[in-house]
Every structure is written in structure tokens, then in C-alpha cells.
């Protein structure tokens, strides 16, 4: 019997020694399989002992050897536990240099005109204005005629126009196709397509024969139109004030100055108080404390006549300004041409 115990004990010690030397889970499991598994040395020895023992001893030997197998099981679990806590300790000991630069997931950048346009659209969306668009190559009718600017009207001088050769390619200046000089033709298209009430904001690209630091032959405007029963000049002022404060800040004031546009009556120039100098006056605002923003007014009955609206029943206001100019003021861009050069260093500043 002594030899039996010794043999098993010897195997167990061998097992313990190998288990201690096992450096990872895979090794631990292999050691366990080699000794305690179904075909492991200890189980084989147990089977052999039980087989060779006399019948009345089989039970005792079984119990005695099971004890050893339980110890094998316990040692195996302890070894796994030891490895797990070692792994955790190693993980916890690890650290990164948080001051190294981050790995870039580069976002691109939207153009300042897109950013300004979206902000304008969002502000007016709050007031119930939806967005409408129209073509850039426009008929003389939509761009001038329907806006109360017939062919010989001096107001046409206010907008130097690019003309487009007709489809036959035979037309010159005075032809009836132009690159639109303002977004106002979209007003006409909208009103021709819908009955009041109308509340739209109309962004778009426009063209004028002008080229210097503050004028580009192509630029972007946004136009607003609100027509319904009972719309007033005071409403126009209120809407502009709301916009000014949302776009430039709560301290901004709005000033309307009488002006002339053939398609509005009364007409007004829109001035916003200059945020940068807080209205105290500086070089940008020519010391006036005010910045000229755009034009506005109550829709002229003549325009309503062209689109078939009853000007006794309905009144409305319209306004418009340069999106580019808004973006220049908001982001402090001095030269409008920077918007159209595509310099990536310029583009990457905006967010």
C-alpha cells in the first residue's frame, strides 16, 4: 500500500512542479490535461490501481485516490486564478503617454458661405420660413420686368448685368436672358407657383459685372418673402431685428433707412449696428457705428399684379442681402475673393 501512495504522491508532486512552471493559461491547461484529464497520468494510475486491487479494497483505494484528484483540481484552479491576477496586475501597470499627439480622424470643412447660409435658413425656419431656390440663368421677365423694372428703367443701372446668348446663340446685350443679378426672381417664381400665405427664404448664387476687393462678379444672396393678409412694415422690422440678434448677438440693433427699389414700396436699406466696435464707430463702419446689410421693403403692388395676387387683400414684405457679406462680417474676412480661390488653408479655418 505504501508504494501505491508513494507512486500517486510522486505523480502529484510532478504535477505541482510543472504547474508552477507553467507561464500561461495554455500551459496550465496542458499540465492539467497531462495529469488530471480523462487520459492524464494520475487518472490512468488510479484506474490501474483500482483494477489490480482486490474487490474488498477497491472502494477504499477509490476514495484515497479521489482525494488526490480533488487536490489536482484545486491546484489547477489556483494556478488559473494566479495567472488571472497576474494578467490583471500587468494590465493595471500599463500606462500611455497622454501627452503624445492624437491620431487624426480628419474631418473636412464646410465653406463659410454654406455655414452662413445654413445658419440664416435655420433662424428663419424658426419663424416659419421654408427654403426655395431658382435658376441662375434667368429670363429678363423674372429678373427685371416682373419686379417692376421695365427695359428703360433707370434702376437697371444699379445692377450691372451679364447677358447670355439665346439658345440660337444670336443675341447680344438687351437679349432676354441674363445671369440673375439678385435672388428676387425666385420671389416671382414662388408667387407664380403658390397662393398666399407665402413665407420663404431664397438663397442662391447671383452675378454682377463688378470686380474689386468688396465686389466679386459672382456672389451669393439670400432673399426673404412673407405674404399674407395683414403683414406690415413693422413686421418686417421685427423679423429683421430677430434675425440680427440671432446671427450677430443680442446686443445688435437694426436701423431701416428709406431707399428705393422698384419692387418694394416703402423701401428701406437695412443697417445693423456694428458688433465689432459695439456701435461706437470704427474704420469698418466708416465711423457711423452702422453696417449696411442689404435692402428690404413692402412688396410693390405692381409685383403682385405680375404674379396675380390681389394687392388689396394681401400685403407682404421682402428683404435680401449678401450671404458672402454676412460671412465676411461674421468671420472677419476682408477680401471677398478669398471665398472663391479654394485655398485649403482658408477652407480649413471654418467649422
Amino acid at each position, binding site marked *: 500500500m505504501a508504494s501505491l501512495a508513494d507512486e500517486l504522491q510522486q505523480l502529484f508532486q510532478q504535477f505541482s512542479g510543472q504547474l508552477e512552471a507553467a507561464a500561461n493559461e495554455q500551459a496550465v491547461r496542458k499540465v492539467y490535461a497531462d495529469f488530471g484529464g480523462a487520459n492524464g497520468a494520475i487518472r490512468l494510475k488510479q484506474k490501474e490501481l483500482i483494477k489490480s486491487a482486490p474487490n474488498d479494497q477497491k472502494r477504499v483505494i477509490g476514495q484515497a485516490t479521489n482525494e488526490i484528484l480533488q487536490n489536482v483540481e484545486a491546484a489547477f484552479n489556483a494556478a488559473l486564478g494566479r495567472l488571472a491576477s497576474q494578467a490583471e496586475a500587468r494590465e493595471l501597470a500599463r500606462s500611455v503617454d497622454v501627452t503624445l499627439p492624437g491620431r487624426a480622424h480628419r474631418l473636412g470643412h464646410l465653406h463659410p458661405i454654406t455655414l452662413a447660409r445654413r445658419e440664416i435658413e435655420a433662424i428663419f425656419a424658426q419663424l416659419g420660413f421654408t427654403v426655395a431656390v431658382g435658376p441662375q*440663368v434667368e429670363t429678363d421677365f423674372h429678373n427685371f420686368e416682373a419686379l417692376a423694372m421695365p427695359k428703360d428703367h433707370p434702376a437697371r443701372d444699379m445692377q450691372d448685368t451679364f447677358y447670355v446668348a439665346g439658345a440660337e*446663340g444670336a443675341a447680344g446685350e438687351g437679349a432676354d436672358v441674363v445671369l440673375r443679378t439678385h435672388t428676387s426672381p425666385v420671389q416671382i417664381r414662388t408667387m407664380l407657383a403658390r397662393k398666399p400665405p407665402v413665407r420663404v427664404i431664397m438663397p442662391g448664387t447671383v452675378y454682377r459685372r463688378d*470686380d474689386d476687393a468688396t465686389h466679386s462678379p459672382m456672389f451669393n444672396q439670400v432673399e426673404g418673402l412673407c405674404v399674407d393678409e395683414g403683414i406690415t412694415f413693422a413686421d418686417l422690422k421685427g423679423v429683421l431685428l430677430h434675425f440680427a440678434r440671432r446671427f450677430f448677438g443680442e446686443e445688435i440693433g437694426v436701423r431701416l433707412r428709406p431707399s*428705393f427699389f422698384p419692387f418694394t*414700396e416703402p423701401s428701406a436699406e437695412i443697417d445693423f449696428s456694428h458688433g465689432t466696435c459695439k456701435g461706437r464707430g470704427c474704420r469698418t463702419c466708416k465711423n457711423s457705428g452702422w453696417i449696411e446689410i442689404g435692402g428690404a421693403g413692402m412688396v410693390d403692388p405692381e409685383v403682385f399684379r405680375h404674379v396675380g395676387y390681389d394687392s388689396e387683400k394681401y400685403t407682404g414684405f421682402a428683404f435680401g442681402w449678401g450671404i458672402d457679406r454676412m460671412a465676411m462680417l461674421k468671420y472677419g474676412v476682408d477680401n471677398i475673393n478669398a471665398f472663391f480661390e*479654394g485655398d485649403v488653408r482658408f*477652407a480649413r479655418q471654418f467649422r
Partner: protein
Amino acid sequence: MKVSLNWLRELVDAPLDADEVANRLTLAGLEVEAREKFAPLSGVVVARVLAKRPHPDAAKLSLVDVDDGRGKTQVVCGAQNVPAAGGLVLWARPGATLPGGITLGEKPVRGIVSPGMLCAEDELGLGTSHEGILILSPADGLEPGDDFAKKLGLPDEVWEINVTPNRPDCLGHVGVAREVAALLGARLRLPSVPALTSSAPPAKVELADAEGCPRYTALVVEGVTVKPSPLAVRLRLGALGVRAISNVVDATNIMMLLWSQPLHAFDLDKLGGGGVLVRRARAGEKLMTLDDQERTLGPDDVVIADADGTGVAIGGVMGGGGSEVSSATTRLFLESAHFLPSRVRRTAKRLGLHTEAAHRFERGTDPSNCAHVARHLAATIMGVAGGKLGSSLTDAYPRPIAPVLVTLRPARTDALLGFTTKIDRQVSLLKAIGIDAIDEGAGTLRALVPTSRPDLTREVDLIEEIARLHGYDHVPATLPPLDSPPGPMRDADDVRNDAARDALRGLGLDEVVTYGFVGPEALRVFGGDEKRWVRVTNPLREEQSIMRTTLVPGLCAALARNLARDQPDVRIFEVGGIFRMTPGHPNPAEERWHAAALLHGRADGWLKPGTAVDFYDLKGAVEQLLEALGHAGEWQASKQPWLHPGIQAEIHIGGVVVGYAGQLHPAVTRALSLGAAPLVFELDLQALPAASAVVAMELPRFPAVARDLSFYIDESVTARAIREVIDGARDPLCVGVRVLEEYRGDKRPAGKKGMLWSFTYRAPDRTLTDAEVQKLHDELVARLAAKMTIERR
């Protein structure tokens, strides 16, 4: 329009504070854009020349003894026109300041000390002449010792007023003064004009074109002496930027600047038949204008001919050279007429003659005022040039233009403006600008609008005047009620364009906006049908003469600018319109929304940090963009001549080609001087079908198992071809297929490429066993091998 503050002060019966008046005018719609001091000088006095003699050491200088009433002083002078003893000159004494901030002292000139100097016109800031010192005439009424600035009311203040096209009345000082008086509640003080009667017969006028010239008044003045105007007149013209010419011509200009009524003085002796005939020009009629240009006229133009029928002026636009007033002129034929605005505008525009006269006539002068201004002009001329009336007034006015009667409902004023203005306040505001409004009861006012305001013909025009004079500052700010149903949602194109911008931005591209027009050369490189180009007929430059048919030239130009500025790593996109002529299209040109992008240089921190961008970076961007818009494209090799023949594809969606992607052709790259060839794509966003609505699928409940397959295959076999075979061969339980790698390295059999594909197996209703997966995979591989020559790696 330049306005003299001194002149306004003469015309308004109230003290004028310059700052206040400028501000009030600006807020009333007459924007004072600039203010400038005219002739800011002090310490300049009138002096009498007592004697002059040459400077002993300088031939061109003289020593002049002058007397300023306080005694004799010797001044050194460089001018050649120093008058003889008794002449009056202007002496800037030591301590005097001149425009430009010069202060005079006593300083030696070639060894002889000169206390101050004798002044020329330009030194006084009165004009540009430096031909000699200014010599006063006895007619100027100045005495030695007089302070020049004080006597002539200098400095004056000159305002540049932005007069909108609807306000021709404010193209003269009287109109501006009327506004000032109305704004301040002061009285207008108009100059008195003598009645000027004559027993002589009327000036000879025949009016044959009463449409083009509704009114023609004329007076003859005889016995005038043409000479320079008195200093005060020259100063006034100088202040307003008008060159002084002679007393007669200057008088016509002064009257125009006062009344906004252009006038013309003919030399009567040069008018054949001693009078004028106002008629339409004959087709092809030639006329030599004052600027020595021969003009060709047509029946739409009004010609002032002499009584013999020879054209002497283009009515309302410019006089002719032959009948001009000269220094020899003694008899004048004075014209004060009204021309039809649209006719003048067409003539001036066609001839490119944007004269001061045409500027006023085409906006509308006051037809009621012609005779009055004719008399004022004659009286003024007789005051400065002598002479007497040689005719009684001729007034050819066959169909007098009556003041317009407008009905105004004060309640409508309130309804349009959004606040209440009492009826008597409305009446008094209109009264202040010369409009008599009579309360008829029943809620209406009858307003009589003077002919000086051709812009006021409707009720709404008068409402604007009330709002303007009341002050826009006093308009309350309200918000329109949101009680109407909202309009339609924004246009689908617009929504998709912004979605495309967001997607491309998210992919690390920077948005640019380039010009809508490009040059023919830049566009020709990219092919296309030139007959469908939308051409600008009056471009500023050739590079901006064709509306773009593709966004790529703009992106290439932006790349070129970046390269020139040492920025080679460029990843940009644009979402914008392209244009072409399409017969039958509802708009003048067909405009389509495109999205295009350009990649160039290294992909820093983008897809593969530090490596050069390649076709697959581009394709990945397009795929992600399409995914964001709800689509997946089919890619096929294509044959665009402007792209690299081996590195380009067309993208098909729903059986339509929606765009191209590829590397720019080396020849195009060279032609555009771009260095390395950029990668570009362009999609016609409007060719994309409407994306189908998203329907969320049920997530799989059982795990998937992946198996890879690595093999060599002929280089020429495309991934798409392999994929088609796989799709035909796979079991429905094979739910995913993708390429992991393409290998074209050194260790491959000749003519072959290595590929690694991955397959995903999953059953919807149970967990697949390893054995099942292995069986499915082995069967798939066997079927592939049967259809394609592959060699397992």
C-alpha cells in the same frame, strides 16, 4: 450728387447744424455718403499791387510791393502774370494756413526774405489751375485788406449725396433744400425770379416731336459779353466739381445745379433761320456733338435743329459743336425744355453719352418749371454778362402735364405700416413736401402731387412718403403672426445637396466654391458639346465667358492656386450647378446640381497616413457619399478622354451613368500645369434616383462564421467578374462576401494576381456547426474552381 452746405443755407430759412442735417437726410433716404471741406483756409487777404521789379538773383522771380490796407510789404513771387500797379491779388500772410495744412512764415527766396506768398488757384484749394496767381476783378467786389475766406463764405462743406433713381427732384439744390425744410419744419427760401416781360416777338420755336419733347420754352438775350464768371460763381462751381467755362455756360450749369433743370444756351447767330425746330432725327442722320464726336442718330432720338433744319443738338443729351457759345457770342438763344425720360434714356444709352443733362432728363425733370427756370437763367445771365431780352418767352407746351391726383386712405397707411398715424399728421407730412391733401371724409384724402415728383403716382407711394417723413426709426418692431399653415418642405434637390456636403465633409474633404463661369480653353479640355454652351455675351474677361458644364475645371484651378502657394495636399469638393442649353427646357438654360471632388498629394491622417492618395481613396469617398445618399453604384472601366485610360470608371446607378471617377489624364494634367495628376470624381446628383425609404431589418439571432479563401487568378479577371461567379455559386447560407486583399507583389506566378476573399455563413434559425460550415465552404470553393481557373495559395 454734390451739394454745397452754403447753398442749402441760402435756400432754407433756418439755422442748419451740419451734423444734424446730414444725419436727418441720411435717415430720410438721401444718404450723405461723404462730407468734405472745400477750401479750408485762413489768413489770406486781398492786396493791391503797388509795384513790381525783377529779383536781382533769379530771372524767373519778381519782387512785388503789395498793400493790404495796412501798408506796403515786399513779397517774392514766381508767377509770370503779376498784374500791373493797381491790380488786386490774394496774399497769404505769415501765419496763414492753406488747404493741405500748410502754414506760411517768412522765409528767404534766393536771398530775399518773403513774408508769405501771392496765391494761385490750386494753392487756395479752389481749383487745379497753377498757370499763375489768382487776379481779382473789380466785379468781384473785394477791397484790399478783406479777409478772403470770410468774404466768400469759405470754407464751404460739400456733401456727396446718394440720390436714388426715383428722386430726380433731388438732383438740384432746391429739391434737397425742400427735403431739409420738411425734415426740420422750416420754410423753403426760393430765389426771387423777375417776371421779365418783353415786347419783342417770341423766340422762334417749332415743336414737331411733342412726344419726345412735351415742353420747350425759349428766350433770346441780346448784347451779352462772354467772359469769365465772377469769382463767387467760379468758387461755387469749383466746390461742386464743375469746371468754370464762361459766364454764360456757367450760368446754365448753376441753374441746373439749383433747379435740377438742364439748360442749353445756343449762339443765336449760328442758328440758321434764327430759331429751332424740335423733331425726330432722320434714320442715319449725323450730328457733331460738343465733344467733337460724330454721332449717328435714328428716329427714336430727339434732335434740336435750327430753323433751317440742320441738327444743332441731341435733345436732352448733348449740344452740337456748331452752335456753341464762344467768346465772340453776343446773342443767345436759351433753351429750357422737358424731354420724355424713356426716349432720353434710350438715346443716351445707345450713344454711351451719360451726361449731366441726360442723367436728369431720363429720371424725370419737372415739366411745370421750364418757363420759370428759363426766366431765372436769362436774368442771371443779364446779371453777369449784360445784355437785354431779345424776345418774349416762347412756351411750346401742346399737352400740359397736370399734377397727379391720388386717393389716399389713411386707414390703409396704418394697415400697411403696422402702426397708427393720425389723419392730420398724414396731411401735414405730405404738405411739408408740397403735396396738398384734402380730407374728403369717408376715410379718403385727395392728394395733389406736384409734377416735380414723378415718382409719386399711387397710394402706396404716398404711404412711403408718410413713413419716410415720420421716420423709419419710429416704426415699431413686431413679428408676423404664425397663424397660417406652414409652406411646403424645402426642395428635395436642396436637401440632397446639403446631405452630399455633409458626407464629403465627414470624409475629410474641404468644401470650396468656384466661379460659375469659366474660359473656353479650360472647358474644351473636358470635351462636351460646345453648341450647348451657355455663353455670356458681355463677360469681364474671357476666362469668365462660358457657364461651366462641369465642376472639374474649377477644382483644377483651385488646385493650381494651392500648388502655387506651396500647398500640395489638397482634398477639396464642390457641390454646385452646371449649365447647358437644352431646347424645350422650361428655364432659359438647363441647370443641374453636380458634386465633384479632387484629391492630390499625401493622405495625411486621412485613409492611409503619409502615403500618396490613389484611386481607391477616391473610390472609397464616392462609395461613402453614395451610401450617405442611399445608393450603391456599379463601377465599370470607362473611356473619358480627359482621364487616364487605365485608371477611370463610370458609375452606374439604376442603369444610368451618374458620374465618373479617375485620375486626370497626363496630357490634361500637363495642359493645366498641375504637376502630379490629381484624382477627381464628378457625380450628377440629379441623375440619382430617389432613394428608397429606410425599412429597418430584424437583427440576426444566431452567430455567423467566417471562412477565408486565398488564391491566384489571371490578372485580367476583375473583382466584379469573380464576384458574379461567387454570387451564382453560393448557398443562401453564405450571407456575406468581400475582398480582403489584392496581391500584385513579386512572389506570384507570372500573369497572375493573388486575392484573399472572405465569406460569412449564417443560418437564420440555428447555430451552424463547424462541420456544416466547412461543408458549405468546401462546396462553394469547388464550384468556383469549376468555373474559374484559380490556384489555392
